[in-house]
């Protein structure tokens, strides 16, 4: 590089190594970082970072919304999953880094909004400022042609401008001041409006904080539980009755109101006329009888997909349904060891369902059954190989069961799933690996088990529903804050904040009225507003506007 310098170049002395800056103490640095954090630039950066950080959670299944998807994803990509797990990508929205971004953003927001609130409260108590000396430098400047007017006429004219502005929602103040150069006096009205703009702005941001706090509290005190109820059965809202239950951190059993919901009837309607949508569900209705302790006794209600049941401080949602074949098992000694409807979980749109029957009371050995239920089994001429259901309604209900004997492991006190049968230590007596093939039953059929183990009867089919019971004490708070967000946004964006001045200026030719305004924030309608005021006022006075 040196060669490109002119021959007469000589280096100036090297600059001091340290940049000459004021020394900041601990407080100074804290103040510096706080200023940085609460600056608009940082807020904008955090906003864009938040948008960016939310993306990975939509690319990878999330534990909260799609737990089975996570399991499948991990099985398919074991190596990648370890890395993703380290970065909490399967829990993106409760991960440390995502939380850090939005918490910083909210701290930045609060740090910005609090001083602005203080400032706004002050400005609400402040009167409009003094009229500027030169209005012609301001927006929408308009003036009338000068006319010789008497002093009291001028006073009346200013008073009428005052009234006009006041009526249009301006906060006003009258001034008498001397002119810029010639010492002549000028009467004027100074007016300001649109304080609601900043109010809306602050309400919007405050309500966002409100949502965050309400959601935070809600997650601590809420709970959700799932329960399968077969037609004719009932559910009582106590902890032990749930199939699964997810309490918030501060949940206690005593919160549960022990109401009961009995499923009287479940009706599913499927499309039958439109061939393009044949078999598509068009309505699910659950008729229930509820009983709330301390309430007005039993009452009948319906639950539908878009209309949950609000009961005892909880909401019960109809999120699933299926078939529960009534199965009776007689053991080798001829006793009825099991007789009840068993919920089979649907696997596809045509409700091919899987289920498990555990018969610990069977003698001489415990029995375990697992198999499929097909509401409308495919015609044997059509489907080869595995059976499947071809329609969700009960046109040809069929049950197939594999039968196992052995210790079901139910008396160990270890909780086991009602929907899964661990067959590792059991002996298959009927099924693909046994001498006897799987049992195939239609409604009303009874099939004898091999080796004199007893018999299985398929008595009838009932429907079941899967209810999700939720309790979220802050849900309405969140809604309230969301409404405030919207209201704040509307006023904060669309109410114009502006200052307007009307001034009577004495000149050699007489008195001239001047009109002008100043936008405070986005205000595309200011010029039109000034023109309107000038037109109304001058017409009222019978004066011409100068062109």
């Amino acid at each position, binding site marked *: 590089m040196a060669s490109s310098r002119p021959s007469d170049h000589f280096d100036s002395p090297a600059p001091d190594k340290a940049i000459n800056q004021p020394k900041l103490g601990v407080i100074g640095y804290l103040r510096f970082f706080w200023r940085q954090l609460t600056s*608009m*630039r940082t*807020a*904008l950066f955090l*906003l*864009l970072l938040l*948008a960016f950080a*939310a*993306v990975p*959670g*939509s*690319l990878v*299944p*999330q534990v909260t*919304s*799609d737990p089975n*998807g996570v399991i499948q994803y991990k099985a398919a990509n074991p190596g990648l999953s370890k890395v993703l797990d380290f970065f909490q990508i399967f829990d*993106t*929205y409760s991960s440390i880094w995502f939380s850090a971004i939005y918490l910083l953003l909210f701290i930045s927001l609060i740090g910005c909004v609090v001083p602005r609130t203080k400032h706004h409260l002050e400005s609400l108590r402040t009167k409009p400022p003094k009229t500027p000396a030169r209005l*012609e430098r*301001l*927006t*929408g*400047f308009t*003036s009338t042609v000068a006319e010789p007017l008497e002093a009291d006429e001028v006073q009346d004219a200013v008073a009428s401008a005052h009234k006009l502005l006041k009526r249009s929602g301006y906060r006003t103040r009258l001034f008498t001041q001397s002119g810029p150069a010639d010492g002549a006096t000028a009467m004027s009205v100074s007016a300001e409006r649109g304080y609601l703009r900043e109010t809306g702005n602050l309400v919007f941001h405050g309500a966002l904080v409100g949502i965050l706090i309400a*959601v935070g509290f809600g997650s601590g005190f809420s709970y*959700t539980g799932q329960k399968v109820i077969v037609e004719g059965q009932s559910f009582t809202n106590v902890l032990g009755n749930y199939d699964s239950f997810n309490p918030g951190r501060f949940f206690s059993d005593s919160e549960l109101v022990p109401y009961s919901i009995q499923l009287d009837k479940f009706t599913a309607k499927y*499309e039958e006329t*439109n061939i*393009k*949508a044949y078999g*598509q*569900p*068009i*309505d*699910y209705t659950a008729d229930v009888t509820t009983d709330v302790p301390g309430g007005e006794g039993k009452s009948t209600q319906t639950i539908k*997909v*878009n*209309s949950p049941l609000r009961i005892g401080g909880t*909401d019960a*949602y109809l*999120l699933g349904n299926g078939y529960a074949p009534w199965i009776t098992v007689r053991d080798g000694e001829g006793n009825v060891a099991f007789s009840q409807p068993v919920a089979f979980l649907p696997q596809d749109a045509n409700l091919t369902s899987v289920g498990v029957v555990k018969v610990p009371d069977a003698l001489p050995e415990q029995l375990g059954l697992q198999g499929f239920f097909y509401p409308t089994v495919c015609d044997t001429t059509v489907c080869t190989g595995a059976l499947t259901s071809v329609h969700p309604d009960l046109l040809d209900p069929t049950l197939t069961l594999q039968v196992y004997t052995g210790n079901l492991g139910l008396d160990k006190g270890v909780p086991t799933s009602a929907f899964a049968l661990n067959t590792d230590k059991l002996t298959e007596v009927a099924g693909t690996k046994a001498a006897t093939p799987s049992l195939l039953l239609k409604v009303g059929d009874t099939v004898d088990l091999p080796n004199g183990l007893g018999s299985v009867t398929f008595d009838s089919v009932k429907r079941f529903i899967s209810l*999700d019971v939720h309790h979220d004490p802050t849900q309405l708070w969140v*809604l309230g804050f*969301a*409404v405030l*967000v*919207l209201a704040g*946004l509307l006023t904060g*964006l*669309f109410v114009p904040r502006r200052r307007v001045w009307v001034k009577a200026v004495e000149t050699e030719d007489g008195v001239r009225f001047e009109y002008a305004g100043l*936008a405070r924030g*986005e*205000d*595309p309608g*200011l*010029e039109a507003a000034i023109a309107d005021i000038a037109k109304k006022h001058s017409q009222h006075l019978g004066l011409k*506007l*100068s*062109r």
Partner: protein
Amino acid sequence: MTGQLITLSLVAIWSAMAVYALAFIAFTIDLARRTAPASEDVVVRSAAADSALSYETMTEGSSSSGRGSTAVLERTAARVDGTLRSSKWTRIAMAFTVIAWILHVGGTVLRGLAAGRVPWANMFEFSLTATAIVVGVFLAVQFWQDLKFLGAYVVAFALLLLGLATVNFYVDVIPLPPALQSYWLVIHVFVASLGTGFFALGAGLSIAQLLQAGGSKRLKFLGTLPSAVTLENMAYRLIVVGFVFWTFTLIAGAIWAEHAWGRYWGWDTKEVWTFIIWVIFAGYIHARATRGWRGSRSASLAIIGFAAVIFNFTIVNLFFKGLHAYSGISM
């Protein structure tokens, strides 16, 4: 009867697409023929230029004028001249657009009649409605501002999406699944598409703004467009309207989700992307108030935001797994 309505609806949509194609050609010819008035380097401003600008250009001499825009009077005249030269093709293009739009709305309404419900319950129907709203918003804002120079962009957008919808997204009229049987379907989805319409125009203006700020000499039609600052202000005013609609969509969606799925927010993929879009446009609004971000940078944000809207509608609908699986298309 239903079959006839479906056929009529499709005929109307295909006809609309043909006329949109004509409108697109006319708009393109219009842009190609537009040339700036004699003084190309003059930054042209519309009479309704934003207040801050006319404040800057105000001189002592113009202080006696009736309106703040008098200072740019001769330039305005030049602009009128420039507009006149292209007005024939603009008028033809606008006429085609209006005809196509009427056919388009007619086809969409017929589809709704055939289905006996609102015509936006699957991706095909939503494409019809959303594009009709985008073009509708484009036509409606002409009463507010002359934005005909966006015609080629808007019509091309509608045409592409309609083509994609009729060829790739088409599904037959089928009844609503229980989860969609709610009045929120009417409100939530309609307001979302209204928001999309405003975002689309805002993004179009932002693209024009970036071109204008880039100062390309080869794109002659830029000389007939408003200045970059005016374009930015118009884009802002459209986008904030879109933002309010989008906020409402989020809230209405949360209320509906609570009714149908038992929770108001669950980070479902579609919810995530609606949130991302909301945050991007919130960023856009803040960028307008941040030093160094006004101008081209905020315009880029508006364009990225609208790209995210398109992404949310196409890619997220088709390829992402989630509860909003109502495209009616099985992949």
